[in-house]
């Protein structure tokens, strides 16, 4: 099984993903530099968190135009699995591989804090490690995580079950109006979505930083276990 992690100038959470993958699955992903114009054969591509191009202009906008993105589009068109975390999610929306956009947090401040996510669907490669309705603790660390899309798109996302993670209270209660449990003000408390074919996933929080009890929680592990089971 081969996992590729794409690094853009300014990406900074690639090491976290490598460490988490290795710890949970024993597999060490390979790092791919954004200027590559061909991809090795891969089972999954991960776009990690960070500040690609400093997040100048709009988060993810410039990375979405990197040379490697052509290859990633081709990979996606062939039905490849792609996971974008945080900045990776922003890049996927900027590249139009996922619908919607990530606006500045409602508080207009960067937010680094634990939050809870509710699993809306567990029949995807990214969520099969959980049960539907499970709630897990994870860390957020972003300034622009306020998911937005127009009404039509929202209807489609809700109707087709493309919303996989929602911000919630520890007990699973979802209230998009509550700035404690929906910390960035996302529409319908959306924290993560998948593409129509269920193979491209974007999420704002960082399960990769929650895979070791020493760091306060192992709640992020099922993400990597689920991916492992899917790809194996």
């Amino acid at each position, binding site marked *: 099984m081969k996992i590729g992690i794409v690094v853009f*100038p*300014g990406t*900074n*959470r690639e090491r976290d993903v490598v*460490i988490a993958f290795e710890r949970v699955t024993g597999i060490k992903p390979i790092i791919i530099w954004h200027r590559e114009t061909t991809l090795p054969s891969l089972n999954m591509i991960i776009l990690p968190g960070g500040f690609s191009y*400093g997040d100048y202009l709009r988060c993810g906008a410039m990375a979405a135009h990197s040379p490697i993105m052509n290859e990633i589009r081709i990979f996606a068109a062939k039905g490849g699995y792609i996971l974008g975390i945080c900045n990776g999610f922003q890049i996927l929306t900027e590249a139009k591989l996922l619908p919607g956009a990530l606006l500045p947090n409602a508080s207009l401040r*960067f937010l*680094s804090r634990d939050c809870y996510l509710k699993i809306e669907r567990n029949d995807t490669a990214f969520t099969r490690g959980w049960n539907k309705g499970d709630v897990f603790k994870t860390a957020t660390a972003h300034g622009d995580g306020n998911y937005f899309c127009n009404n039509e798109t929202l209807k489609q996302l809700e109707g087709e079950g493309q919303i996989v993670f929602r911000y919630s209270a520890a007990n699973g209660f979802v209230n998009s109006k509550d700035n404690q449990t929906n910390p960035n003000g996302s529409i319908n408390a959306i924290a993560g979505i998948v593409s129509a074919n269920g193979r491209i996933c974007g999420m704002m929080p960082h399960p990769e*930083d929650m895979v070791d009890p020493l*760091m306060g929680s192992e709640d992020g592990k099922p993400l990597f276990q689920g991916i492992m089971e899917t790809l194996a």
Partner: protein
Amino acid sequence: MNKAQQLVVNESLAKEFGLSADEYQKVLSIMRRTPSMTELGIFSVMWSEHCSYKSSRVWLKNLPTKAPWVIHGPGENAGVVDIGEGLAAVFKMESHNHPSFIEPYQGAATGVGGILRDVFTMGARPIANLNALRFGSPENSQTRHIVDGVVRGIGGYGNCVGVPTIGGEVNFHESYNSNPLVNAMTVGIARKDRIFLSVAVGVGNPVIYVGSKTGRDGIHGATMASAEFDEDAATKRPTVQVGDPFVEKLLIEACLELMATDAIVAIQDMGAAGLTSSAVEMAGKGGVGIELNLDHVPQRETQMSAYEMMLSESQERMLMVLRSDRINIAKQIFEKWELDFAIIGYLTDTGHIVVKHHGRIEADIPLAPLADEAPFYKRSFSPYFKPKPIEPLNITMDIERSLIKLLGCADLASRSWIWDQYDSTIGGQTVYRPGQSDAAVVKVEGTYLGLALTTDCTPRYCQADAYQGAAQAVAEAWRNITAVGAKPLAITDNLNFGNPEKPEIMGQIISVIEGIKDACNALNFPVVSGNVSLYNETCNAQGENISILPTPAIGGLGVLDNVSRAVGNALKENFQLVIIGETKGHIGQSLWLREIMGQEAGPPPTVDLKTERKNGNFVRQVINQGLVAACHDISDGGLLISIAEMAMAGNIGCTLDAPECGMRPEAYWFGEDQGRYIIMTSDSDELIQKAKQQDVIAKLIGYTGGDCIVMPSGAMITIIRMKAASMSFFENLMKV
């Protein structure tokens, strides 16, 4: 035509540049001619307070800097200590006070950028940032704006470069109204046999410039940092330096990649005084000469003069000396990271710095006297008068109400509004984040080692008694590291004071250094790096000079051989609480006295360094034996505040026993005696037994459980109520 070139170099111009008449005479005798404008600029920045430490140098020499684990002490870009497993921790703290007043966001951001460079310059990957902040009174109309900008700036920079910000401290006091203090600390990890220094050697080796292009940023910044602000500071604003954390991130990766090869001979970041100080210091340390051709310097603006380029403080720039046969490796790496770079000169055997521009020699200065004859002053000082003890108080105050009020006061309220804006988890190695433990704890990736990091200083203690206050700051850092179970290794210090030309300020400086020295010696906790920031005073509307409180911020570093042994400060259900150390009820300079009685009076608590060491060693030992489930030191606000903080951290309450008879309740609950800890354990008998054997005072004081603190009187204070009070301060301060 450039304005600078039309000026005539003479004593009065030198004065404008911050050089005294004597200093200018010295310049003339070194040069044996009238210096050029560029030369005068070089002298003025190299001999500024900021670069030459001319007021503090003679005293700083007294600080202890050695221990078997110290690899590099002061004098390098950052301090380096051995942490085991072939690794070293590289760390330093630095101030960016004046720029943060002028432009809070950029001032703070570039402060973080600067200290990061000091650390990765030595070959270390930065793994943690901390920040020690002092703001003006919450009532002051500017405070909110400054807090907002500084916090955004620190977060904006640190988050973007991907280094977790995991600790710090904040105080508010009117003396910082128009002179906030922003002290930023970075810690990095390097292989101990791969530390890079700034000693340039090898005549003929090329000098490489890499990073952002040079603009007219912060010219005279270094001298500005050493001059008092006056009322028209606003109009004299120099070009503000803007940070580019994206380029910094690229620089970190590019430099670390290059450092993995054998290409680098010497490397130095361009900090204050930019190209001047980096070139002068590298060549000076190596005992060689250096020739620069400014035509090759990457420039952001047109028609920059030699003077401007030599003094520019544009950010995110590095200077290095490479092996001449390795230029291509460097070129490849810098091109990969899309960084501007250029060969701008080479090392010579002349012992001079020679600066050429447009075919003309703009400066030619012998390096040895530039360094060796840098001025230093043993300024006159007045001795410190210790405050009188306070009169015994005979009023009884409601303990519960006092607790709530204290929890909401500026110096004790939750700082989560701040740390929520700092990415504290990036790297995936953060074991204890802000608010979860006395010192932040990070795992050293790929090992079982952990680092414990803290910054501490209680300026009101230092104001009342500079010697005691400074010793207390060191002791508190040592204690915070101890309280997580780590072995304290070394400190970095950031000494912030007013105008050293005033005898009373100089007196503070000398006493503070004395206090740090004694505490470091007693605790075997040497100083390995540091920074001095002077002239932190402003002229207020009435024309009075207001000095900041003396603020020697101490950044401490400790190591845990097995990071999984580290303990936090959160209460859990069904444990016992034991207090370590003696409670005498010292109320002078306490927050209780200030917040409840409205008095800032009396002497600060004294630090008994012997007892401090004994108690701390005991605490560390029992933590490492696995006898401790949580630990918190008792500092600001006293015993009950510490317990409340532990309760809020764990969302678990406790039931407390009555104090020993004879002590006034407020003195017992809110006194600030030093050398104390609260330990949560499941076996208090064994713990107290062990303590007795080591002559350490230990006493069972309560049990954990429930959702409130139950006082001996039966009064109950819910955690919800305490949290509401604790959160209210920043909510109110920062409300739009």
